[in-house]
């Protein structure tokens, strides 16, 4: 019997799930109480995550096993990688909740929105703490289902269309993923995530089958991670409200996909098997193509949120790139980007949402002079953009630096070129924004100052500064970077 | 080579004709007739099976046929009520029964 303390991942999951259920059952009449429930849920979760973080640091094992069938268990556990993602999600959930309460103050159907919002976070928690592929899949699909109502929340034909495309991609990906899992179970039997994987002994006999399984699994997760050519849903899903976009891009969906790839590479196949089957390089190539292609498309966008969306396509692939290279340093770069990109991108989306909500600004050419009207928000936008480009000492730079080091270590010098090109492209699509915001005069009759609502600004400031902080204090013991180094050391030490 | 029992041939023919009628006919009343022809073929088969048992007519298939006849007639009677309803409506009438 699992003790209450060991079952901590379950409780963390439950905080969001229960919040969702309360919100659903309470419905619209309780709208005054809902923010309280939301915030209490998010805070409790954060506290529990803190406890768990401490425990993992001390080497405690957290594990819950719920048998579904013989040989088919739901396993929730907490290792260092889990904690990286869980902590990020818990913090960003709190921020996004505050932001969303302010953003949707008078919108209809808020009960539904916040219910699914919490459900979505619950699913993310499940993904993070999944202890085997099946559990991962269960929450992966739950995430798909929980985000659909958020994507179509506005209920206009455009968002319905977005919802349809979103489902086509993600459910299709899920189906492929399921097929991959079933094949793997058939080949190797049930197995938990374990550093280095347990498939090495099959490599000789079933190399083809393993490659096929890898292909299926990566295709399944790649859809959510928006790897080219599976990225089509992401820009369309911009039809959702800004907090949803923020969540989708920074924490939930896209990250879940990237996280899945990390899990598959590290804990299912293992670095060694990857090398043996020669799967790393193709994955790295796909990731590189995605990085460049996403950036190129981002340049062409005139809509602010769409430009950010394509930027996500590009940036998330750094994570994939990092793990695909198969060198410790690159892995550090990739994994730490999970956090860095999350903080940075959510800041950017918060800003975009604040512009839209406060002044109705959606297109980039409407940004002229906004720096003067909304200085704080624009400052955060600036920090975020610079972080994305990778200006030292901001967070993005740390990731890229390690990626570069890793590429050198793996003797894959073309990666350096990719990184450089990406940085240049990032600059090309972000700097004009900053230029317009700060140095162009506001348009006629639009000079009225007006900073965003505090509920919008607060979370933005928080995430923006956090993004700066993670970069600045990367060398300290509790920083994401240090944490990631622990993970990677475990992975690479047999 | 013994000569086939004429009733066995008749049973097979009833089955075949019932099947043919069910597939080919579209008028619901005709379909019900065809189904009953088929049913009679089944009953005939059972009676033959009963008769061929060494030691006397086997009462169990006989009981089955008796049960089968009642069921077939009940179901057909219900079918006839449905046919009556179905074919009388759609003529601008309310479909109510008047007789």
């Amino acid at each position, binding site marked *: 019997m699992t003790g209450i303390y060991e079952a901590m991942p379950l409780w963390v999951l439950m905080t969001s799930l229960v919040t969702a259920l309360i919100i659903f059952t309470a419905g619209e009449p309780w709208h005054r109480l809902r923010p309280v429930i939301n915030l209490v849920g998010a805070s409790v979760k954060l506290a529990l995550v803190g406890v768990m973080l401490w425990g993992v640091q001390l080497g405690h094992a957290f594990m819950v096993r719920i048998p579904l069938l013989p040989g088919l268990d739901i396993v929730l556990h907490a290792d260092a990688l889990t904690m990286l993602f869980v902590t990020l999600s818990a913090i960003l959930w709190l921020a996004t909740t505050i932001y969303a309460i302010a953003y949707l103050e008078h919108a209809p159907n808020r009960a539904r929105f916040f219910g699914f919002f919490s459900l979505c976070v619950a699913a993310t928690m499940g993904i993070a703490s999944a202890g085997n592929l099946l559990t991962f899949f269960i929450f992966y699909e739950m995430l798909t289902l929980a985000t659909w109502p958020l994507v179509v929340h506005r209920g206009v034909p455009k968002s319905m269309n977005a919802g349809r495309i979103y489902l086509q991609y993600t459910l299709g990906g899920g189906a492929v993923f399921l097929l991959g899992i079933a094949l793997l179970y058939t080949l190797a039997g049930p197995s938990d995530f374990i550093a280095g994987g347990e498939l090495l002994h099959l490599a000789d006999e079933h190399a083809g089958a393993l490659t096929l399984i890898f292909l299926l699994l990566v295709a399944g997760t790649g859809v959510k991670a928006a790897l080219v050519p599976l990225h089509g849903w992401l820009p369309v899903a911009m039809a959702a409200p800004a907090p949803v976009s923020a969540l989708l891009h920074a924490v939930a969906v896209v990250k879940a996909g990237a996280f899945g790839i990390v899990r598959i590479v590290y804990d299912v196949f293992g670095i060694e098997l990857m090398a043996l089957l020669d799967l790393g390089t193709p994955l790295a190539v796909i990731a590189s193509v995605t990085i460049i292609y996403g950036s190129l498309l981002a340049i062409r966008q005139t809509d602010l949120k769409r430009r950010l969306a394509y930027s996500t396509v590009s940036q998330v692939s750094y994570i994939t790139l990092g793990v695909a290279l198969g060198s410790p340093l690159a892995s550090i770069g990739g994994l730490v980007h999970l956090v860095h990109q999350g903080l940075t991108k959510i800041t950017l989306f918060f800003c975009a949402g604040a512009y839209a909500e406060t002044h109705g600004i959606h297109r980039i050419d409407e940004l002229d002079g906004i720096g003067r009207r909304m200085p704080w928000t624009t400052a955060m936008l600036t920090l975020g953009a610079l972080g994305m480009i990778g200006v030292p000492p901001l967070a993005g730079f740390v990731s890229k630096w390690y990626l570069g080091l890793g590429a050198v270590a793996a003797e894959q010098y073309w990666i350096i070129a990719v990184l450089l090109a990406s940085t240049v492209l990032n600059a090309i699509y972000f700097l004009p924004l900053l230029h317009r915001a700060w140095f162009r005069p506001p348009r006629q009759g639009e000079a009225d100052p007006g900073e965003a609502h505090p509920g919008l600004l607060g979370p933005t400031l928080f995430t923006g500064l956090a993004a700066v902080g993670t970069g600045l204090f990367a060398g300290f013991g509790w920083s994401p970077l240090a944490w990631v180094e622990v993970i990677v050391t475990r992975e690479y030490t047999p | 080579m013994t000569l086939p029992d004429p009733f066995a041939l008749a049973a097979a023919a009833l089955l075949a004709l019932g099947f043919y009628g069910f*597939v080919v006919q579209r008028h619901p009343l005709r379909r019900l007739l065809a189904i009953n022809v088929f049913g009679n073929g089944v009953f005939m088969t059972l009676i033959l099976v009963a008769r061929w048992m060494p030691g006397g007519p086997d009462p169990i298939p006989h009981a089955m046929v008796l049960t089968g006849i009642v069921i077939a007639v009940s179901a057909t009677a219900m079918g006839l009520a449905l046919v009556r309803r179905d074919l009388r409506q759609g003529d601008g009438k309310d479909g109510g029964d008047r007789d």
Partner: protein
Amino acid sequence: MILFDGVLALLIVVLAWRCVTAGDLYLGIVVFIVMGLMLALSWARLDAPDLALAEAAIGAGLLGVLLLSTWRALPGHRRQDRDHPPARKAVRWLAGVASVAFGLVMAALLHALQPDEDAAGALALGRLTEAGVEQPVTAVLLNFRSYDTLLEMGVLLMALIGALLARTPLAPYGAATDDGTDSPLIPVLATTFTPLLLLVGAFLVWAGAYGPGGAFQGGAVLGGAGVVLVLCNRLQGAPEAGILLRLLLVLGVKVFILAGLLMLPLEGAFMAYPPGLTYPIMIAIEFCLATSIAVSLLLLFTGTHGVRVPER
């Protein structure tokens, strides 16, 4: 006799052929009824007099009446195939070939079939003394496989409910429907034939214990008596059924179930009759069944929830 059997079998096949393919629906129905009678004859030849009776009374008789009355109730243009044309020629050919093949296979199988001599039926024949009645079919229906018979009563009851539901809302009641009912011969028919029919029906039920007959045949004849009365306008449909009529309707199934359940604690199995009381219980059940069958068949004919005696 092989000649007679051969001619009879051929006749049945030809009638079935005409029934299925007759151009005129009315002809098809009439041919179907005749075929039923011929089948009854053939089953009598095949050592199944019980079934011959049942087929004549229920299969050809009552079903024939129902078929004809349904045909009569259809609007003229719905009596033809115009709205329901038969399948296209290609389908007809395909179905024809398939059914010929099916028929040939079945004929070959039946020809080759060699029933077992230790079939369940032999067992039944061997244990007749335990069954309480001499007539094997009745023994099977009311004792060895009484469960089937009970459920079959349920089928009849539900078919009746279905038919009644299909025919609501019902028309005004009571109007004389037949031009023929004022014929001077009708009272003769009603007064002479009905008592006779009732007598024969009751006799058949009772006779089931030792000879051809039984609850179904008897019940059908009793129901037939009711049909005659309706046709003679001595009875007519009523929109509501009194509690008595409903009681009679479910009498068979209810007595059957209650007796069966009663035997659970007494004898340890559903419907395991206590030895010695088997015959009286079975006769009682038979009469209840026959009553319910008669009432059900009558109501299937009238298509109403109840019947009543018309006011004069």
